[in-house]
């Protein structure tokens, strides 16, 4: 998709929140949704099960207004984390300009985190995207949980962040680290968009 359109002076970024089930992807979007002034946010579309598990995906369009003469829009998506929604994840991932990997900091979720990260790489490869090239940040969510329930960031880094991408600690439920994460992925995406635009 054309993301920096110099002819129409539009910037459109698709950012996908990826991660294992119940890691807090939808919570990120809910927090962002709650912080954005009404006139800047579109209708958040969330297809969830009765138990609030994301069934298909969440979609939050953000209109950032005119920035340096560009009409700037962010489209935030989440994927369903559950293993059996593989097809949906792949579909949502298509055309992504950047990925936020929301990891669950709980010790017991480490395997699910690793599995989801591998799944991300596999799905990117399916789309012909080099996982090393696409803008990616990692969010270690649920840092508000007691220390004995969660892994140290260094341990999570060792397991998940082997490429040393920007990583953010977060408590998405209360918003800590949510915008820092969004800010981080936005910068990476915009840098890359500016580097590749024009060829599209």
């Amino acid at each position: 998709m054309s993301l920096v359109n110099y002819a129409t002076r539009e910037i459109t970024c698709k950012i996908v929140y990826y991660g294992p089930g119940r890691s807090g992807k939808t919570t990120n979007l809910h927090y962002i949704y709650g912080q954005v002034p009404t006139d800047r946010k579109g209708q958040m579309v969330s297809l969830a099960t009765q138990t609030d598990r994301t069934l298909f995906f969440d979609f939050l369009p953000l209109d950032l207004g005119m920035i340096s003469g560009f009409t700037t829009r962010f489209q935030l998506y989440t994927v369903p984390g559950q293993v059996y929604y593989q097809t949906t994840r792949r579909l949502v991932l298509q055309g992504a300009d950047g990925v936020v990997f929301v990891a669950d900091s709980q010790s017991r979720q480490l395997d699910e985190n690793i599995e989801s990260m591998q799944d991300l790489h596999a799905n990117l490869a399916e789309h012909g995207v080099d996982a090393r090239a696409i803008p990616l940040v990692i969010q270690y969510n649920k840092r508000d949980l007691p220390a004995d329930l969660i892994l140290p960031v260094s341990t999570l880094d060792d397991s998940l962040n082997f490429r040393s991408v920007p990583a953010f600690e977060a408590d998405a439920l209360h918003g800590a680290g949510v915008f820092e994460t969004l800010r981080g992925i936005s910068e990476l995406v915009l840098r890359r968009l500016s580097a590749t635009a024009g060829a599209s």
Partner: protein
Amino acid sequence: MNEPRATFDRFVVGANNHLAAAAARAVAESPGSAYNPLFIYGGHGLGKSHLLSAVAALTATRWPDIEIRREDGAHFAAAYAASLSSGETDVFLAAYARVGMLLLDDVHELAGHAAAQVGLAGVVDALVDNGRQVVLSAEALPQDIDMVDEALLSTLSQGLLVDLSPPDLETRVAILSRMATEQGLDLSVDVVDDLARREYHDIKELGVALDEIAERQKKPAPQLNSGEFASFLSDVQVVVQQHVESWRGRLREAIAHWQAEGYRTGVLERAIDLPRAPDVAGLTATFSAAVDHLRNLERHARQLDPSLVGHPVFRDPERMTEAEDLVERAVGGETPSKGPIPSLSRDAFEVGASNQMAVHAADAVVAEPAVRYNPLVIYGPSGVGKTHLVNAIGNALLQRSGATAIVACVNAQELVDELIEAVRDGSVDRWRARYRSTAALIVDDIQFLGGKERTQEEFFGIFNALIETRKQVILTSDRVPADITDLEARLRSRFEGGLVVPIQSPDRALRERLFARFLADAGHPADEELLRTLGEHPVQSVREIIGVVNRLGSAAEMLGRPVTVELVRQELGGGPVPGRPTPRLVAAVTAGHPFLDAEKVVWDWPDAGARLIEEVR
């Protein structure tokens, strides 16, 4: 003392406590009729006090007339000791006579208080004997309480002793879930499960863990914080300014603009990949100027040939030269250039020692036009095959291009005449464009350009344009360029800048082959003797050979005989016809040149073999 919230409903029953819970509920539902006294024991924080409170609450509900007294061991011990001191023990004990249900928590706190233990034994016995319910709790079995009085031990042992053991995982999960729900905490199942897996000594610690999370979650609910979003917007703005509005951004903007206009922007796209910023303003201005020029060219082309409008070359500044060529071809397209004579093919050209160098050069030009020999200048006397050879090159180039290339093949005199005509018609531009648009230009007999100043001037321009755009130029002349009279030095030097090769008069072997071919073509097959005889005939050119063949053929037809050696001798004479001395030799002889003794001069050297025989003689 009594915790109003500590009811049976809120007591989570598991494998560890279901007996105690059942017994407690039974005594609450039917006080004094069963399990009396009921002694509940277990570690600290496992729910003993909760059960006692639950018994009290349920009893009060079911049996509102029953007086319920709730106290703990420490309080009982202290009060009993006080009554002893004041001598009012009877009064103290009498107060229990009215109690319908005694709930005594932490009996183990009576350890060391022997008198109080005796007193308690009396109270319990009295109550039980009167059908009143007694429920006690302690951290250990009665016999394990330090310094327990035998009387009390006996009393307590008469009732039901049930224990509360630490809750298993599932019970802890259930307890935590209930606690979380009651506190309004939003905890996922796995978080609760994780909490439950902690090492706990009692239920209270579960509550403490939960409180820890509750404390964190009691942070103010997310409020609309325009500052946070504004800060994010500000950061995005900085990034956009830095990375989107950079020099690459300006280039991309130009690319987007020109692409939207339908132009190819390869040169600008490559500039984006430069490691450092180029002169963006200069680059875009140059590109813009190039586009303007393309537009002018397209307008011009439209006037000449409307079908050319929209041609891809008019949309790509990097194909400017092609666009100009296209227009030039359009300009000259009304009068197509004269092409090579189709019948003069390379296959029909006989190769011999006298022309092999020129033929080799011609083949190289066909193989790689405008690469090796450009221009190719072939010189030699009239009738030796120059025209045939260059027309053969032209035909081969046409064939090589699939007949799409424009190959012009004209005589220099025609060139002069055309220019005169064009000057008269005011169509010199078109005439010029016609030749500039060719892929290969062949000009025969360029010696005719000598003295034609205007033609030389125009040809100079055409020649340069073709050479610069890597188009092949082939020229013939009856002499080397240096000997062409009144030829501008700049043209001569350019002609000599390519390959200048001669074609000489056919040697004997070539003559024999040519005679054989032409006689055969005329229907007169020739044997070796006849060809040897004809080969000795000293002709200077192919054209002469054709003339001899025509003469012999005519004579043969007239006499009704085949072409034979006799006929040849009859028509051409008995022996070789001496050649005419060249002007240069005549001049040398007359000038008395020492090496040109008339007796040693042989005017015509038929071939190397003949020369050798002559020298041997």
